[in-house]
């Protein structure tokens, strides 16, 4: 679902709204301000890429959107819910019901098969997809009984995506999903995410330090030293297969 690039970043159709968000970490005797007043929005049903150098605050921002962390100041509103106001228990329910995560290192449980890994997420919500449906969606029919150790990196990342989408989340947060993969496999993973966005309408936030990869996003937030340097919207993002990095 392409968006109108003319619309401002705090438009009404925003699924995620970040208002003057700061995050400070105490590091020994000094406090390090990783985010220094981020205000931005992420449109519903789109792919948004957050780009920036290492240490720019990308992952911290993703953690705040996913309800893994709390801001030091400011507001994080996801799907109309102000996460700052939620208790730890409510944040757990928020993550459980509304968010799917895809990690750079896949984070699969080594002692569970692909199907069982997906099941860990599927059984958290009532109307989840079955593990086999989710695995089928990521092109892993017939791999349900394989353990992570028996799968390639790309296949493991597919299982990780299957696990994330099995809950039918409104928001899919991907932290460098191709960071540990070769280019060819990375393209396949990105194509999969693009397809999920287009067919299922899932809002995807993608972290990458590679600007060429960001070209598949409808919106690109560039982070530098903990603040948003630029917001670039694209009417016709590139297809994953066209990307070069």
């Amino acid at each position: 679902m392409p968006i109108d690039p003319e619309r401002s970043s705090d438009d009404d159709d925003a699924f995620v709204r970040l208002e003057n968000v700061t995050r400070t970490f105490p590091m020994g005797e000094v406090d390090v301000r990783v985010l220094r007043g981020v205000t931005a929005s992420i449109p519903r049903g789109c792919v948004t890429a957050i780009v920036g150098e290492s240490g720019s605050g990308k992952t911290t921002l993703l953690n705040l959107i996913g309800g893994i962390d709390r801001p030091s100041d400011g507001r994080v509103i996801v799907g109309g819910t102000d996460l700052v106001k939620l208790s730890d228990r409510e944040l757990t329910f928020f993550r459980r019901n509304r968010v799917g995560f895809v990690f750079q290192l896949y984070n699969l449980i080594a002692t569970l098969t692909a199907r069982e890994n997906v099941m860990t997420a599927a059984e958290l919500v009532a109307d989840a997809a079955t593990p086999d449906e989710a695995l089928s969606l990521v092109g892993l029919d017939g791999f349900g009984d394989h353990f992570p150790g028996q799968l390639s990196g790309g296949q493991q990342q597919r299982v990780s995506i299957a696990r994330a989408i099995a809950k039918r989340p409104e928001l899919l947060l991907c932290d460098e999903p191709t960071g540990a993969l070769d280019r060819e496999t990375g393209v396949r993973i990105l194509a999969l995410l693009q397809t999920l966005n287009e067919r299922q309408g899932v809002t995807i936030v993608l972290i990458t330090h590679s600007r060429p990869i960001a070209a598949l996003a409808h919106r690109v937030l560039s982070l530098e030293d903990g603040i948003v340097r630029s917001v670039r919207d694209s009417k016709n993002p590139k297809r994953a297969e066209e990307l070069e990095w």
Partner: protein
Amino acid sequence: MVSVLTRKLLRDLARSGGTLSAVAVIAAAGAACLVAFVSSLANLEHARDDYYASARMADFWVDLRKCPVEDVRRAAARIEGVADIRARIGWSAVLDVEGTTMPVNAMILSLPSDPANAIAGIVMKKGSAFSAGARNQTILSDKFARARSLGPGDTLTAVAGGQRRTLVVTGTADSPEFIYLVSPGSIAEDPATYGVLYVKHDFAEDMFGFEGACNGIVGLLTPEGERDVRGVLERLSRELAPFGVLNAYARKDQFSAQMIDGELQQLGTTSVLLPAVFFGIAAMVLNILMTRLAEKQRTVVGTLKAIGYGDGRLVRHFLLFGAVTGLAGGALGSLAGVWMTAGMTRLYRFYFTFPDLSSRVAPAVVAGACALSAVFAILGSLQGLRRVLRLHPAEAMRPQSPPSASQTFAERLPFIGRRLGFRWRMVLRNLDRHRARALIAVISAAFGASILLLAFGFLDSIGAIVDFQYRKVLRSDYRLTFDSEADDGALGEVRDLPGVVRAEPVLSVVCTFASRSETKRGTITGIGGGAELLVPRDADGCVVAVPPAGLLMADRMAGALGLRTGDRVTVTPSRGGRRPVDVRVAGTIRSSVGMAVYASRDWLNRILNERDVLNGVEVLFQSGADDTLRREFLSSVVERPGIGTVTDIAREKRALRRQMDGALAGSVIVMVLFAGVIFFGVTLNGTLVSLEERRREAATLLVMGYSDAEVGALFLRETLLVNLVGALFGVPLGVFGLHFFMATVQTDAFSFSAELRPESVLYTLLTALSFVFACHAVTRRILARLDWRESLNVRE
């Protein structure tokens, strides 16, 4: 200057503080046991040997009917092996305490006018020994005097041998003969109701009509005699046979000595077994930690090797890791051991009367405990060390290949496999992946549970013994014994005493039982056919009728003699004609306590060539009788000539219960604590290692929307399963331990059977699980503090 590796060691130790502390605490429990038990053993042994030497403890005793002292001296002089003897007079007495409802008994023993250096002599505690003046002087056993608030200058009235005498207390004393003093027939001490009254020998001669005679010998053996105690006693018994030898026994069979020897033997066993269990478990847990450390520090080790550190330095580095943990545990445990030794000494001082029993801990014992702790820790570090040595630098610096997993045996089972959810599958596969670790946890839990079961089993066994003996077998309120054999006329007199509802005759005769393979001493208790106050029962509590002829023998006694129902045994009574009789074992009873041998009183009389003889009466008293009636009864008993002792059965039961509870309470608490150390230490360690390995897994689940409790539950399942399986194995192990320990307290005089109530097995499992849940609370706290953001990107 501190080397780089030493700095690394110190920092690694600081970082692994939690897990290493748990191992150190388990090792500390081992060191504490070692220090406490070895020190207590040494202290007790030292105190006993010193006491025996300084107060000339006798090597043997001979109880006689009546024998001229000169004959005794001549006989002893003729027998090789006897170094010295002392003839004495002993008599049981009832004290006439005005207005009491509690019978007070005593043993009167004669001493030379100058008791210094007498064989089986005394050590004065208060006041002075006999003075030249008055003859009716007495020295009281100190504990009895304290319990009855008697001291020098006080007087008391003793009734013995049909004589009533007022005695003046000159002092109080202890004797190595009565380090553990109980009234005859009892095993619990009750100093307020039983004591020893030492009197001048000439006074005793006069009181009992024993001028120039004695009824007991205490003697010392030469070194040659010590090597053949049995032979010496046999020869002496033969020489003195015309004067009526009632009993002749060596120090090892003397009751007080037997109790101390039994305690020393138990301490000896425990001082090896318990530390071995704790050190063994500490070594196994350290094995898990060191193996994990070797995995964790692969890259570091690879790098160190690559830059030129030799194997020798790395070995030293990793060995120090284990040794420091072991030494820390040893030091901590030694401190606890010193404290435990003091506690055990206090307990021994309470039950045993020594002039000097101090709580000493030899530096060598502490050094030994620390060294053993370190050695076990080093042994536990060896496997991890082997991994470090095997690492090739190039290989070590590459990240480890991802762990593999596969279906477990349980999952492949057609019925179970399909029903297992992913959580249980995770648990089983994790256990399968770390089999050695799981096995160690199971073994540790088995030992932990067996210690718990042992603690509950002790309580059960003692409870069962007291209940069996005092509720089922012995149903009387008072037991009267006579100085010498009486007849049914005496029984009639007892029946006429105020408050007596029922009185039953008893004839107890000490005998020697000789089978083809063994010879043992024991007592035949002769009771009437319809006895209701002393009722032989089997271990299930069913009444067993006394056969009209032959013996009804406790299976332990029969077993010790190698006899079965229908077999014949040669019985030599120590009374009457003392001629050996060949009798039949008419039946055996599964007895839970004692080595009892019952017979019909009439039959026993026939064996002794007597008729209607008795030497004791069991009395059933009016229920709900007031103190006035009891006082009246007791004063009438004391008035009656020939009464030897009066025992209040309810009080005896209370004394036994109190003593057992007192001795057991501390041990049970310490045992539960030790079991807790094992469960808590091993489980916490396992969980911490597991959490460290699976930090990313836990963080991922938390990010996905699992709560702390749900993620914690995954770890809990694993620890619960392992501990439950271990605890189940621990049940038979504990039952075996219980039987083993109860067998070590068995003597010829009495034996206890191991009893275990089914609910104690349940309590064992529940207590074990409660430790696991307590540990889980710690796991939950660690999970709540877990830094997910950092853990999400940890390379495993």
